[in-house]
């Protein structure tokens, strides 16, 4: 659906890369036409923001399912879909189909499988998949163990100027681990791997990316040691970026006590020291992206003994609120929060969205920053209720969402 009539959101607080200021936004033909006070013109559809935040629609980098109600609840207007689908996104036809699947009110940016069947061995037809709509390349849920294959993937990606989204866990060390080695895993008797499995993977991938000159994005970096490696690589000018999901800055592995499978994630929850390191890395800019990792899982995947359960959490609905706790706690400011949630992922994917600026896509969310609510897994919009935040009080809610200037209902 195209926007038929100009829209002005007035009397809000604009969250732009340069700061937060009072004003409104005028959207014409699906794009932001003007920003500031008194931008409304005669004939516009006017929405009174009543002092709420006017923010870019979130760009969720690396989700495992297209789950529109949950995305819209969470203010997400674009989602980069991981190739771990059934069947995997390793053929242009599949990419082409999925790229159109969310329109008009949710744009799906497929990430092409780096290797056929995500097997980690043969390269996928990445260039053809790019023509079909892929906005990046991803290794999937797993790491590509063969360094030779990974180097070829990165070189190919560099040639095509596509970002490579990597999962950083050394598969030899991680094995069948479902928890981070430490007191909690030991008490529960769970298969565990040392947290250093992440740093090993990050070190190798950074080295290979430097050889290849490729843009490398770690979907989740969750340990102090790996974050130090990313920090160092950035200082050397390597085009490496890091992401994380709220679980790893909100929770530590204490959350898997009593074998709660909603806390079974990949990578697994870490120690509280690592959680603090993630918060510090968000503060100092080492972490560029916060995404939901949205992976709704029903009881057939989760109501199992911990090590038999599938990893993943339904995170789309809580992404915004969790991230804004970092603003409340003074870790980051509002413009930076929305760079983590929208600006940076849009840049990585190469899409003209994710910021409130003239000429950008009219993907807008209206957010009440103070509105309290409680996560209740019985009342979720997502297709499954696997949130580790059940019962947790949250702040800030999306009041309204527009995709390309058209209201999302």
């Amino acid at each position, binding site marked *: 659906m195209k926007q038929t009539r100009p829209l002005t959101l007035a009397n809000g607080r604009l969250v732009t890369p340069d700061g937060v200021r009072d004003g409104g936004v005028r959207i014409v033909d699906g794009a932001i036409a003007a920003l500031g006070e008194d931008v409304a013109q005669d004939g516009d559809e006017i929405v009174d923001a009543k002092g709420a935040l006017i923010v870019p629609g979130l760009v969720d980098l690396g989700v495992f399912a297209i789950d529109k109600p949950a995305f819209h609840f969470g203010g997400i207007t674009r989602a980069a879909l991981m190739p771990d689908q059934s069947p995997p996104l390793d053929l242009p036809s599949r990419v082409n189909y999925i790229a159109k699947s969310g329109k008009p009110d949710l744009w799906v940016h497929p990430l092409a499988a780096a290797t056929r069947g995500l097997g980690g061995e043969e390269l996928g037809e990445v260039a053809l998949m790019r023509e079909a709509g892929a906005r990046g390349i991803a290794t999937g849920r797993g790491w590509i163990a063969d360094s030779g294959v990974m180097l070829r993937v990165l070189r190919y990606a560099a040639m095509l100027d596509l970002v490579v989204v990597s999962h950083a866990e050394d598969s030899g060390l991680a094995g069948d681990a479902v928890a981070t080695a430490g007191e909690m895993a030991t*008490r529960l*008797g*769970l*298969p565990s791997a040392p947290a250093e499995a992440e740093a090993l993977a990050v070190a190798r991938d950074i080295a290979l990316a430097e050889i290849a000159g490729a843009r490398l994005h770690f979907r989740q970096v969750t340990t102090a040691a790996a974050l130090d490696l990313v920090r160092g690589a950035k200082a050397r000018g390597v085009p490496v970026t890091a992401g994380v999901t709220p679980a790893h800055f909100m929770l530590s592995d204490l959350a898997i006590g009593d074998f709660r499978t909603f806390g079974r994630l990949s990578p697994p929850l870490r120690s509280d020291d690592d959680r603090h390191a993630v918060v510090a890395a968000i503060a100092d800019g080492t972490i560029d992206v916060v995404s939901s990792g949205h992976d709704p899982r029903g009881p057939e995947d989760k109501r199992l003994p911990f090590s038999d359960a599938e990893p993943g959490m339904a995170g789309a609905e809580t992404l915004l609120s969790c991230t804004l706790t970092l603003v409340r706690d003074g870790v980051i400011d509002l413009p930076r929060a929305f760079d983590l949630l929208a600006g940076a992922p849009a840049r990585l994917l190469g899409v003209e969205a994710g910021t409130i600026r003239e000429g950008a896509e009219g993907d807008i969310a209206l957010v009440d920053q103070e509105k309290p609510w409680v996560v209740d897994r019985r009342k979720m919009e997502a297709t499954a209720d696997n949130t580790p935040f059940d019962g947790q009080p949250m702040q800030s809610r999306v009041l309204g969402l527009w995709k390309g200037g058209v209201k999302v209902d």
Partner: protein
Amino acid sequence: MCLSDLHGSTSGMASMASAGSPPGTGSGRFPAGGHAFPHPSLTGIAQLERHEILYLLHEAEQWVEFNRQPDKHCDLLAGMTIINAFFENSTRTLLSFEIAGKRLGADVVNMHAAQSSVKKGETLLDTAITLNAMRADAIVIRHGSSGAVDLIDGKVDCPVLNAGDGSHEHPTQALLDALALRHALDERGEGAEDFTGLVVTICGDIAHSRVARSNILCLQALGASVRVCAPPALMPAGIEMMGAKPYVDFDAALDGCDVVMMLRLQAERMSGQFIPSTREYHHLYGLTQQRLRRAAPDALVMHPGPMNRGVEIDSDVADMLDRSIITRQVEMGVAVRMACVDVLTRRARQLPGWESPLGQGQWK
């Protein structure tokens, strides 16, 4: 309406219970009635308070005597059904639970479900709900995944007993080990209710051992200090946070200890190679007569079984009549399991003092 009926049936049950049950309960040393053990199930030692562990041991003592009589049958649990749901192969634990149930007069049914066949279709919870629908009065579960028993507990109406879940816990093993140790010390005239001051060394595959975890918790709750010894690959991270002192060198771990508990290598739980060979393992961690001399002069030797003679323990050590209490552990297993099943079914049997359901001013 039928308050009097309830009272009637209660006293009926109680008289039946007291007819079949040896005396000795209610000594006044433990909280009265159901407060002595306010748990619906036995999923692990970690959930138990020290006095609750002592209570189960106290209850088990009567069954030790009972089991030594020629007539080893009572009708305490007559009419009740106990299902032993073993999702992992077991001989001795299954047999021990089966004998325990039968001696208490319950109908015992064994469900052998090799884990692979269950994995093909029905989920664990569906299986549990099926067992529940058959009106089991207690379900004993062994499963290869840590936390499997916790998962089932709460989804079924009857008490659940953990007979070993993955590498997590094996509470009845720790209880029977404590009882066997108590008896052995008693015979030497060193008997006490608990193990204050005792040094116990547990050696073997600590990483994969549920017996080690339950014993670390149980022995420490009873006052012992615990050393654990394993090659680094079989030593779990953060074990010292559980209070145990880790050792790599077996000789150092044995130095002056009062009890040596040897564990089997759990090859079935290992993925990949953790030790080069059993010969090499024996060289470093096998309990030989010579090594045992490093322990206290009369140190006791324990093993939860099944033993791999010549690997973690030499035959001449395992068979030392005055030092090895390995067969006594097996004997105590039946008594401890009888006590656990008895205590956990008391609410269903409405014993005096156990009538009130859990959750009224108590925590689950």
